[in-house]
């Protein structure tokens, strides 16, 4: 007890003795770790956790941005599930979109990353596949709208008329049956984004001697090589890619609205985020908009947990 000094740490006043005990011991063991994490966690708490918690609170209020939020309990949630028919359409569209483009986009990203990885020209090829992500907004707005344009000057209509498949221009962006497929097509074309680059980077971290070792252990063809070496080695990247695919799938918005408009004809291209955006920035009903956000969050979070379990990154090989 004789030689005690008061030391300021991030956890407040802590007394340190010659032999550390209690908090001091804790600090000595884990302090460095927490110092490494501190800068990020501080910003994370201020600019992510606080806004998210605020959003959850707002989902229980009536908030029109001009007046202070007024607490209304579960009303928003009741309205959402029991009376909002458009929301049901949005859920159906989003699910269709996510279930198809999620897995297909994930698979395509991996396939292209894997195919171009051993090639000499991989940087230029990677640029080509990543291009839709770089020029995202420009490309969707300009190129695809002209391709799918509903008059006979649209590239696709022009071509189909030319070869005689159709007699009059088809309204790709206005016919209820065509809107979702067109949106999904463009989304898949854009899906070589994050996942693709992350897989490509992941493939770089697989040591080449593993492949040599694999050959000695009797791996005979590229298919076995992918299954037994490549996939287990880039499992963390696969988890990342799949979580991003789920998030992207369920938060589809920009592709849908830039192609089909907001609101889209008969809500055929209406998605959960479009519904939320509609209430947040067009009708300024922030309370209701955050209710939709919280629902979407619970949905994607549940799926994310499921994927984490599937790809759990414990080293079992």
């Amino acid at each position: 007890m004789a030689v005690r000094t008061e030391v300021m740490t991030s956890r407040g006043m802590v007394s340190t003795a010659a032999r550390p005990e209690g908090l001091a011991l804790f600090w000595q063991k884990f302090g460095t770790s927490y110092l490494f994490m501190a800068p990020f966690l501080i910003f994370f708490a201020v600019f992510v956790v606080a806004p998210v918690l605020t959003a959850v609170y707002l989902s229980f209020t009536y908030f029109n941005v001009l007046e202070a939020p007024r607490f209304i309990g579960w009303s928003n949630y009741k309205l959402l599930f029991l009376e909002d028919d458009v929301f049901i359409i949005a859920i159906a569209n989003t699910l269709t979109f996510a279930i198809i483009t999620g897995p297909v986009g994930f698979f395509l990203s991996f396939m292209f990353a894997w195919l171009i990885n051993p090639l000499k020209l991989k940087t230029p090829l990677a640029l080509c596949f990543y291009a839709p992500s770089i020029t995202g907004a420009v490309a969707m707005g300009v190129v695809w709208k002209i391709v799918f344009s509903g008059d006979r000057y649209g590239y696709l209509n022009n071509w189909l008329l030319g070869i005689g498949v159709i007699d009059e221009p088809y309204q790709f962006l206005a016919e209820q049956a065509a809107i979702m497929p067109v949106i999904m097509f463009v989304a898949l074309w854009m899906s070589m984004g994050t996942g693709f680059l992350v897989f490509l980077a992941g493939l770089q971290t697989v040591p080449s001697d593993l492949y040599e070792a694999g050959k000695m252990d009797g791996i005979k063809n590229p298919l076995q090589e992918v299954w037994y070496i490549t996939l287990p080695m880039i499992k963390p990247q696969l988890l990342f890619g799949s979580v991003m695919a789920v998030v992207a799938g369920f938060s589809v918005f920009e592709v849908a609205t830039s192609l089909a408009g907001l609101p889209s004809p008969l809500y055929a291209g209406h998605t959960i985020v479009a519904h939320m955006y509609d209430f947040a920035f067009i009708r300024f009903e922030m309370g209701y908009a955050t209710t939709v956000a919280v629902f979407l969050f619970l949905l994607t979070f549940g799926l994310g947990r499921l994927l984490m379990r599937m790809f759990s990154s414990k080293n079992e090989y």
Partner: protein
Amino acid sequence: MAVLVQRPQTVDFSVSKVLRFLRKQTPAPSYLFLIPMAVFSMLPIVYVISTAFKPLEELLLFPPPFLVRRPTLDNFQDLLLATNALAVPFTRYLFNSIFVVLTTVLLQVMMCSMCAYPLSKARVLPGRNFIFGMIVAALMFAPQVTRIPQYLVVQKIGLIDTYGALILPALAWSYGLFMMKQFMDNAVPNELIEAARVDGAHEWTIFWKIVMPNVAPAWNTLLIFGFIQLWNDSFSPLVFTRSEAMKTVSVAMISLTNGPAAIARQGAQAAAAFLMTAPTITVFLLRQAKVIQTMAHSGIKS
């Protein structure tokens, strides 16, 4: 063993033969398949580049010709004229963009990597699952809705109309942290770190000298993501800043192309789109080449 060798041989005539054909041994068929796909996916960049050089009469055609027929530099002159009418000199927007994007990207990657290191490699870390769980949860929250509460926070701290408002909120990049941690999990062997710890190396040294070189593909990829996202972002500067002197190039482009004279400025618009895209492509090519090179340098493996 004999059985193991037998089975693949039967497969060899079908799928695997095609796959091998597509890969290393003969890259030509691989290119035959990939190049048409690559061209298809590169259409937007080609369109942006070629449109920037189109003369006015080609810009006004409908449907617009995909490729330029008589290339001209008129659009860039037009853009120069249009920028003269802006409230502050164009170089000011350019400076803001470059300053904000570079500072943010470097800090982002640094903070994400530092935070990912203990999350991935500390032997014991109380609260690890809780912290990581929160970060993953944050990924799932639609960014469109946290924007309004985020504005309230930025306003409360008094950051509105400062560089801080453009830089600081972007530093909490859960996405970058998640990715860094995923890479560290597998790409950096635990034995290597343990060995360094036994040798008495400081954690900071281990982080700089062992972990970071091994995850070079990861942070180079993050630099690309960060740069492209921030360079194109017009939401934060529009919402978090008020004075014209704080705006970035992406906002200047919007006011150039969405103003009342937008139709007369079709050419300037195309040139602007080209100039917005050019830096992102440059950064992509520079960093992606590094991602692919790093293999040779990070050969330290267990």
